[in-house]
């Protein structure tokens, strides 16, 4: 029987949702302070009243229930599912009033793209956006990349009532350490360390390239946040292409790769167990998959005039491959070059690489290497069973933080998520095609939205059809939460709204 939401559930969900909205107010303090420092008074007032709206809404929601109990799994799913919608709407308010968006939906698209670390943007005249608004865009990336719940838990927003259901509902099935709060501390500390070091390095490189120091430090912080959380927003319209600096591209390539590694693997590495990384199923899958896709990509690209000389091909090709597989969405070629100069084979290869994505438990999106590896192992297991004697029992193992036996439940979980991703990619492509767009671009765009890759062909742009825009918002949200949270929430809402059905035998007894 499907579980319904009771009034008590709704009040508890409201309370926790309120806490998250109050927490999002904290997020707006950073751009507010940035605006004050740089003397941007219009953005400062905008963030101040947006902060006020968040505080009011959050406090009102918290009053739904003063003393909530511990969250159960059903309530946790609803809190996480709703939180990503409410935060999206809340974050879109200051963005919309910046004057850089044609409609409120465009601002909502950017807010959802920011917190889901997709990186696609419908902003107009990005190059002249204020420092405060830019800071806010990258703060959304940071919050979404780490996970709204992870950040909230690590800051103690949920106090000691922190529930592991909240953590797992946000597409984080693996605990770095057994304690949830310690796991979130670890994720936050590691991210801080990587972003801090890379900001200094990229900042120096930007100053060397000729950008003035204050701007260089800010821009390096923003691109490093975006690179490590595999987001894709950049402070300039031309993405990383704007800098024309090979040294900056090299650091960002490394940062994107570091961002695509699972936090669980990091915890093993920091304990000195580097061997775990080399034995992991994800590392093996990444090596085989990306090796094979690079062959296809290069063979197709070799005929393109843009990549006629070897060094240009290596520089741009490697950057693009790493940018799409980590689902970051940084680009060193223009949109026009992506769709017209690049061959259709290379273009579709990038879409396929983006569809699979990076490692589970990292900040990257897509199907994930672990699932692809598990499905491949399952195929091997089926073949082995077919050719082995009836009396033999086939046991397949794989390495992912220790040796594990490939069980039916692991394969089922991987297959379910894989199928949901593929179906969403297909439906998204069909929706794009139905809006009259070229099939190739529609497929690429659908994959970019669902996998949170964010590399756009120019189809997602200001003035796009509203129905398509709403569908892309839905795809970004569903892809970030890996479908299960979203589907469970949708089913529970439908079941709770539908009138109760009385069993037939009971109905007969009442009538008689």
């Amino acid at each position, binding site marked *: 029987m499907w579980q319904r939401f009771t009034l008590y559930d709704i009040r508890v969900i409201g309370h926790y949702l309120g806490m998250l909205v109050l927490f999002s107010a904290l997020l707006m303090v950073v751009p507010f302070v940035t605006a004050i420092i740089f003397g941007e008074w219009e953005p400062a007032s905008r963030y101040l009243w947006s902060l006020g709206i968040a505080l009011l809404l959050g406090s009102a929601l918290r009053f739904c229930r003063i003393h909530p109990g511990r969250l159960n799994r059903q309530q946790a799913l609803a809190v996480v599912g709703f939180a990503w919608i409410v935060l999206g709407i809340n974050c879109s308010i200051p963005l919309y009033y910046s004057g850089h968006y044609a409609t409120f939906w465009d601002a909502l698209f950017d807010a959802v793209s920011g917190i889901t670390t997709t990186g696609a943007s419908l902003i107009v005249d990005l190059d002249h956006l204020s420092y405060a608004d830019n800071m806010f865009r990258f703060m959304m990336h940071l919050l979404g990349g780490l996970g709204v719940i992870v950040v909230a838990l690590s800051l103690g927003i949920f106090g000691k009532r922190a529930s592991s259901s909240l953590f797992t509902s946000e597409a984080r099935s693996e605990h770095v350490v057994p304690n949830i709060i310690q796991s979130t501390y670890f994720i936050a500390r590691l991210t801080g360390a990587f972003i801090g070091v890379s900001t200094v390095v990229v900042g120096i490189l930007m100053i060397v390239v000729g950008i003035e120091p204050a701007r260089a430090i800010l821009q390096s912080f923003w691109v490093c946040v975006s690179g490590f959380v595999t987001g894709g927003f950049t402070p300039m319209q031309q993405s990383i292409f704007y800098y024309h600096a090979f040294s900056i591209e090299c650091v960002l390539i490394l940062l994107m790769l570091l961002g695509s590694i699972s936090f669980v693997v990091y915890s093993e590495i*920091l304990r000195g167990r580097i061997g775990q990384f080399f034995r992991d199923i994800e590392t093996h899958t990444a*090596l085989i998959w990306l*090796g094979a896709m690079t062959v296809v990509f290069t063979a197709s690209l070799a005929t393109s005039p843009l990549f006629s000389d070897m060094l240009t*091909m290596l520089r741009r090709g490697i950057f693009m491959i790493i940018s799409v597989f980590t689902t970051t969405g940084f680009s060193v070629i223009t949109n026009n070059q992506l769709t017209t100069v690049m061959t259709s084979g290379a273009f579709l290869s990038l879409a396929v690489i983006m569809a699979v994505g990076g490692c589970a438990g990292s900040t990257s999106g897509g199907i994930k290497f672990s699932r692809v590896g598990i499905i491949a192992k399952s195929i091997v297991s089926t073949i082995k069973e077919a050719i082995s004697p009836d009396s033999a029992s086939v046991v397949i193992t794989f390495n992912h933080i220790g040796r594990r036996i490939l069980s039916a439940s692991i394969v089922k979980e991987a297959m379910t998520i894989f199928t949901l991703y593929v179906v969403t990619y297909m439906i998204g492509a069909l929706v794009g095609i139905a809006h009259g767009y070229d099939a190739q671009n529609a497929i690429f765009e659908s994959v970019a939205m669902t996998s949170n890759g964010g590399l756009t062909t120019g189809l997602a742009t200001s003035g796009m059809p509203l129905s398509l825009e709403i569908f892309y918002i839905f795809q970004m949200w569903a892809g970030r939460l890996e479908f299960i949270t979203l589907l469970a929430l949708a089913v529970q809402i439908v079941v709770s709204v539908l009138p109760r059905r009385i069993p037939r035998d009971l109905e007969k007894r009442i009538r008689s």
Partner: protein
Amino acid sequence: MQKTRAEIVSSIKTGAKTISLLILSLLCFILFLDVIMVVIRFVVGLAN
């Protein structure tokens, strides 16, 4: 449980060593993709 100074220094050293090794392996991975590209480009060039 409080860690002693020596333990903290030792864990930082281990972490730094393994992270450097990780970065080195990622650079090797980039080199691996580069080699594939060069080889395939050469093969396609020959075929044409």
